Structure formats: C-alpha cells, structure tokens
C-alpha cells in the first residue's frame, strides 16, 4: 500500500507542477497587465456586467485617481500587488455569490478555470 500511495503522491506532484497533460486549456502564471508580478490570466467581459454600478469595481472613479487601467496599478503598486488574488477573489466572488444566493444568473462562483483563462479582453 505504501508504494501505491507513493506513486499517487508522485502523480499528484506532477499534476501540480506540470498541469494536466491534455484535455483542457492550460492557464499559465506570467507577467501580465504591464507589471512584473506573475499572475494568472483572467476572463472578464464588461458587457456581461452592465447594470452594475461602475464604482463597485472602479474605485478610482470615486477616489478621483483616474489614470492607467485598474490592473496596471494592481500589479505594479507594491502596496497592493501582493494582495491581488485576495482582493479580486473577494470583490468578484462576493458579488457572484450574492447573485447566486438571490437565484439570479451569477456567473462562476468558485470554479478556478471558469475565470482564469485568457480572453484578451480584461
């Protein structure tokens, strides 16, 4: 049994390090959005978020700090770049969960690959 578990452990390590060998599009962690921080790609479409107040996500509208696109700042500013994953997961997921709980079309709430593919449009 210990050898079977050791083999499974090795399969797990390979899956984590190299990803799935086939069958699905593979996201990669790379420098994106003009910053040096290696991040996952993101799928986002403004058109499917019409109806939401812009300032829910675009805090710069309320802060009057309009400048480069939001992602540029979030991956280059050393104060917020380390918080990127936590901040965006909280922002996107909380809203999607609220919609889901209200029985409205919510988009993805948890599945990683549903958001982390590059659509070249974020």
């Amino acid at each position, binding site marked *: *049994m*210990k050898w079977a*578990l050791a083999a*499974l*452990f090795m*399969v*797990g390590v390979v*899956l*984590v*390090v190299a*990803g*799935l060998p086939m069958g*699905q*599009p*593979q*996201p990669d*962690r790379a420098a994106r959005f003009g910053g040096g921080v290696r991040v*996952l790609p993101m799928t986002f479409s403004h058109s499917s978020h019409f109806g939401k107040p812009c300032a829910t996500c675009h805090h710069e509208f309320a802060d009057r700090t309009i400048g480069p696109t939001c992602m540029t700042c979030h991956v280059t500013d050393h104060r917020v770049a380390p918080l990127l*994953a936590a901040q965006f997961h909280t922002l996107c997921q909380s809203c999607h*969960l609220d919609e*889901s*709980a209200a*029985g409205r079309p919510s988009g*993805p*709430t*948890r*599945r*990683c*690959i*549903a958001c*982390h*593919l590059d659509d070249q449009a974020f």
Partner: protein
Amino acid sequence: MLLAGLILAVAALADPWRADGAFWDFGNAMGFVALAGLIFQMIPAPRGQARPHERLGYWVLGVTLLHAFWFLAGDAAARFYLLPGGPLHMWLGLAAVLLLAGLSILARMPDRLRLHPSYRHFRKLHRYLALACLAAALLHVLLSGFYLPHGWQGAGLVALALICAFGRLRPQVAAVPAYLMAGGATAALFVLIREVAL
C-alpha cells in the same frame, strides 16, 4: 446509524445556495464525506474491533484522495493553489492528506510492529497524529470559507469534531458498507439540492 447521521450532519452544515456546478459541488461533497469519516474515526473502537476501524480508515483515505485528485484532474487552474503563493487553507488541506496517508501506513501490520513494539506507544502516537490531521482538515474547510461562511456553521462543525474526539461516546464499530451507502447518498443529495432544487 451514528456514522450515517454524522455524514448527513456535516454536509447539512454547508450553505445550500452556495454552489458552482455539479463538478465542483460533487468534488466538495467528497471532501465533506471524507471529513465526516475522519471525525467518526475519532470515536474509540470497541476492544478487539480494530480491523473495522482500519478498513474504514482506508476508505476515508480513498475518498480524501478522490476529493483532491478530482479538482487537480478536472480544473486546470486548481493546481496553482498548491504552488508557492497558494493560500494557507490549501496547504492545510495538503497537510491533512499527508497526515492521513501517514496514519494509514504507520498503522499497517507488520510495519506497525517494527516501528512500535509497544501497543500503548503506537496508540498514543496514532491518536496525536489523528488529532493533527483532524485539525488541519477542519481548518482547511473553515478557512476556505466557501460552503461554511458563517460562524455558527464553523462552530457546529468544530463541536461535532470535539464531541467525537473527546466526548465520552459509546465505542463504535466502523462499518464500511454504511459509510459508502450514506456517503454516496449524501453526495448525491448535496449535488442535487444545489443543481436542481435551488
């Protein structure tokens, strides 16, 4: 009966409207079934009934591995949660899997006798490792904060675990068929409630 009730109780603590498709919900249902099995295994077995406890342990490990590999093999982005920079709750989940695998391997004859000539010593170490595994698994579920976002849900889960681990419950004979049937039914219910009913 207690085992089936425990599986249902653990799964019932999760928010029924928290869902993200049958794939994700089934994978997490497996996680809850594994956690319930782990909690049940903390109740002492009657004297001379160690074999059923051992057999159920293998199934709990199997369901735990199914839960982990389900996501690794089915969601190409999930692996980034286990790479450097991944969140603490995922490392705790990995720790729980490794501890559970260690518990099973170290308790298996004849390796157990080689490592622990004294049964008392083995039992003590087995118990401490199991408590560490249970703590890591509970923190994995609670810190992920997805299905159990409210404090009362977390408190309920911890209370169930504490009662089984430290309460003076009647020794229980572990039953694999009951675990598989109750676990399968609970997993199906877990998914159906989220995908069909709500």
